[in-house]
């Protein structure tokens, strides 16, 4: 079948008829969605569910940014990927975009294979009406938060670990931002990641689906319907609680909302990576004032890594054919790669950032 016959016309709304019938959206809401643009940061577990849902729903334009390739242990929850993508070594953003274009050719799907950081996030978010969180670390979320507050654009935080997750929609100037509610990044010893504590695909689906609904409300023109609470989801026990965090806008001494400072966007806080020439290694630099508790980090890594060793100077662990050496100030050297994105990804997944 020629392409022109296979593709539906963008003005033909029949694809969305069941969504248009839903009175919360209607035809005008659908047209608003088709005109909307989002930037999705991260296309792993949350990101694939978000992209899948929004592309099927007819978001007009989605820019998908991700730094990783697909591994076998992703397939349990990252719904747009399959064995063929692994065999062909396709980056996540590219594999997702290819699937999504087959699902709904009305939508413009743009893929960018990159590590989202303070140097490129403004460009990656250029033109976006809303920023979506599909990341796997705190640092990038605070970076998104900074940009959203600074440029007065909504963003939707979602995160999951094990069977529990959180979701919060940030409407700058109206609701508290992420740093009003959680001001700092927890230290690595208090910071389980999906790679150290596990994660259930079913929990991811719930969190990302709530993120997608809030996104659809905003972009279809129903901002008044947005849930402004911190939504806490315990999928194992089917328990959802809504924390009314509205007062945090007034009570918190938020660096973004109260002081107009954007420490992550300005590169003053957060990590940077440097390739160590000729050593097949990358150094990760993290700005932290805390001293890392190695005993607790080792305990966190016990289940997933062999031979975690530490003394008072450093902690060393072998994961995925790489050796990570962590220092008390949060700095690390990742051996076995000269690729900064690979090193940053390993740090986020196993140490936590």
């Amino acid at each position: 079948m020629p392409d022109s016959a296979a593709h539906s016309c963008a003005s033909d709304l029949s694809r969305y008829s069941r969504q248009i019938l839903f009175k919360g959206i209607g035809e005008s809401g659908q047209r608003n969605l088709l005109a909307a643009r989002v930037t999705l940061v991260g296309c792993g577990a949350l990101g694939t569910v978000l992209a899948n849902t929004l592309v099927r729903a007819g978001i007009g334009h989605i820019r998908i940014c991700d730094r990783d390739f697909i591994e076998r242990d992703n397939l349990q929850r990252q719904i747009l990927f399959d064995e063929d993508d692994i065999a062909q070594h396709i980056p996540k953003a590219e594999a997702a975009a290819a699937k999504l274009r087959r699902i709904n050719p009305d939508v413009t799907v743009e893929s960018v294979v990159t590590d989202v950081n303070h140097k490129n996030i403004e460009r990656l978010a250029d033109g976006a009406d809303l920023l979506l969180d599909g990341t796997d670390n705190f640092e990038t979320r605070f970076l998104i938060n900074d940009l959203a507050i600074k440029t007065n654009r909504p963003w939707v935080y979602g995160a999951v670990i094990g069977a529990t997750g959180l979701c919060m929609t940030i409407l700058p100037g109206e609701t508290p931002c992420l740093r009003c509610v959680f001001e700092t990044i927890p230290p690595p010893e208090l910071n389980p990641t999906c790679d150290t504590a596990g994660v259930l695909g079913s929990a991811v689906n719930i969190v990302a689906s709530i993120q997608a609904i809030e996104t659809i409300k905003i972009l279809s023109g129903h901002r008044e319907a947005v849930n402004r609470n911190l939504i806490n989801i315990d999928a194992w026990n089917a328990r959802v609680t809504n924390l009314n965090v509205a007062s945090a806008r007034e009570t918190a001494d938020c660096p973004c909302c109260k002081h107009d400072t954007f420490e992550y966007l300005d590169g003053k806080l957060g990590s940077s990576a440097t390739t160590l020439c000729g050593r097949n290694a990358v150094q990760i630099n993290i700005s932290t004032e805390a001293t890392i508790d190695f005993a607790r980090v080792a305990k966190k890594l016990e289940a997933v890594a062999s031979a975690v060793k530490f003394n008072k100077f450093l902690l060393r662990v072998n994961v995925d054919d790489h050796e990570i050496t962590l220092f008390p100030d949060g700095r690390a050297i990742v051996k076995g790669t000269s690729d900064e994105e690979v090193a940053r990804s390993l740090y986020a997944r196993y140490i936590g950032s």
Partner: protein
Amino acid sequence: MELNLNGKTEQIQDVQTVADLIGHFDLAVTQVAVELNEELVPRAKFAESILNEGDTVEIVTFVGGG
């Protein structure tokens, strides 16, 4: 003290304030949001927020995975 904690009735000894409760679970003050009897507790007031018998408490831990 008996508390309704994240939807479950729990007996917790030797806690007087929200800050004590956070410490009891080995959590850091900066990684949680806490609601006491359906009111958000400002982080700066954890140490002075007194817990009473039968209080309803929600502790939400900051999550970074995904």
